[in-house]
């Protein structure tokens, strides 16, 4: 089966254009809010906190904050990308075009992940102005960043596909993902929690993502890095299956 390259490219560039048009919201806003975390928690409060696993507190929280941005941005980028054409009616054009389900997903998710990675890179660079950052395993870091960006962009596509209004679309990033990141060891080590809450935290999937990235940065983690990678791949496969089935059925977009 031939690949509709020009259709893929059109949707991808169209989405990237939206990113360029809304730089203030899509790039500067997350960079500013993460910088505030670095200033408050890293530079100011961090000076009064002891080192964790031999790493200064300011440096320790970099992977967690990076993960917070990656997750929220990838979900909101892609969910908005597919929801907006549904909302304004231009989805008809995509449905009537000779494009396969796979090509539609790849274009929207590819653009969403690209935007997220751009934001992530800028935040990473910004963090070096506030705290000392070292990356022990650069390739592993890139692999995890790309994997997380694509996986959650795909999850965002699912959110956008299932949402019928703007409120529903914002529920997952704000009411589910953000609390999971904050309670998933982004600003602390699990060892610092009482035993009971450590057990509870094991059920939070975001914990494994943050620890995987922290391992790539500093070589320290509460879990084996493979647990993180396998859990991410598992979630990616689940998202691929669900999105493909829903889109093929035309769920929420095709009568």
């Amino acid at each position, binding site marked *: 089966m031939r690949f509709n390259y020009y*259709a893929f490219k059109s*949707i991808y560039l169209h989405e990237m254009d939206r990113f360029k048009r809304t730089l203030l919201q899509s790039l500067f806003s997350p960079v500013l809010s993460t910088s505030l975390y670095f200033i408050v928690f890293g530079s100011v409060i961090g000076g009064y906190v002891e080192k964790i696993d031999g790493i200064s507190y300011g440096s320790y929280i970099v992977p967690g904050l990076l993960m917070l941005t990656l997750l929220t941005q990838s979900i909101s980028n892609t969910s908005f990308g597919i929801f907006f054409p549904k909302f304004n*009616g231009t989805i*008809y054009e995509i*449905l009537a075009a*000779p494009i396969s389900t796979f090509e539609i997903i790849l274009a929207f998710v590819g653009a969403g992940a690209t935007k997220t990675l751009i934001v992530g890179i800028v935040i990473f660079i910004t963090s070096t102005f506030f705290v000392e950052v070292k990356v022990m395993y650069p390739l592993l870091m890139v692999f995890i960043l790309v994997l997380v960006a694509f996986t959650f962009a795909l999850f965002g596509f699912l959110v956008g596909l299932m949402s019928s209004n703007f409120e529903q679309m914002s529920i997952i990033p704000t009411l589910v993902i953000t609390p999971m990141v904050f309670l998933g060891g982004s600003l602390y080590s699990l060892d610092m929690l009482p035993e009971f809450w450590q057990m509870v935290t094991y059920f939070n999937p975001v914990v494994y993502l943050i620890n995987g990235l922290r391992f790539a940065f500093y070589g320290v983690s509460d879990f084996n890095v493979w647990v993180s990678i396998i859990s991410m791949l598992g979630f990616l496969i689940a998202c691929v299956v669900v999105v493909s089935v829903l889109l093929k059925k035309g769920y929420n977009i095709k009568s």
Partner: protein
Amino acid sequence: MSDNQISINNLSKIYDNGFEALKNINLEIKKGEIFAMLGPNGAGKTTLISIICGIVKPSVGKVSIDNFDIINDYRETRSKIGLVPQELTLETFETVFNNVSYSRGLYGKKPDPSHIKKILTQLSLWDKKDLRLQQLSGGMKRRVLIAKALSHEPSILFLDEPTAGVDVELRKDMWKIVEDLRKSGVTIILTTHYIEEAEAIADRVGVINQGEIVVVDQTKELLKRMGHKKLTVELQEKLSEIPNSLTKYNLEIGRDKMSINYTYNVQDKQTGITNLLQDLKDEGLKLKDLKTEQNTLEKIFVSLVKENNEI
């Protein structure tokens, strides 16, 4: 080989809420013709177009374009089709040029700025190419929708209510555009609820009502059947019965007995109006006013359904 480009066989559509939008539709559309689908709001016109274009899934039946099935061979069929939707659905923050180029890409065509320029020029949009859609008037937005539908050089163009809510000037422009497209070999299917529109541009007309095709015929033939009008002659004095000399006109006396009604066909060479007025004068009847009334689409559908049932 058949000259039919679109074949619709036993097509039905039942929505999830149980509404039966299309009932066993069978229709053939020839290559290069202008086919008008005429019907009132909610008749099923848009559903039919949406199924052919791939936006709505059929419940039962088969549609093929140039012998390609719209489900199994969707890449072939969809790449042949351009669709101008009824609603002005556009990316309002994008420029005209980018909007049209985007559509070309979606249909798998290599970027071709010269072709986009040609279309925008034809549609009097070239000087607006850098404007964002939100800066355009409703009429201009409709032209952009046409430009988008033509961006990938389709051989079939669907126009869903192209002149709904547009002024007379733009309506005539649209008809001109449609005629020019036909000359270039494009098959055009348009939906409308204006009889005049079908009369002005269509080769054939299909009348659709409550999800069923009531009749399909050459425009001229159909207009003959649909062209009945009613002439009401208001009188200055009451008339209790039709005089013998006027019985040949099959006149009806109005309820208040202050008027008489005459039904005639506008498509006939001689409508009989002149003779009727002369005979009324000869009978000494004094006229107060005259008015004519076109049959409403609904009345026409009812009469066509009746007519079909009788055949």
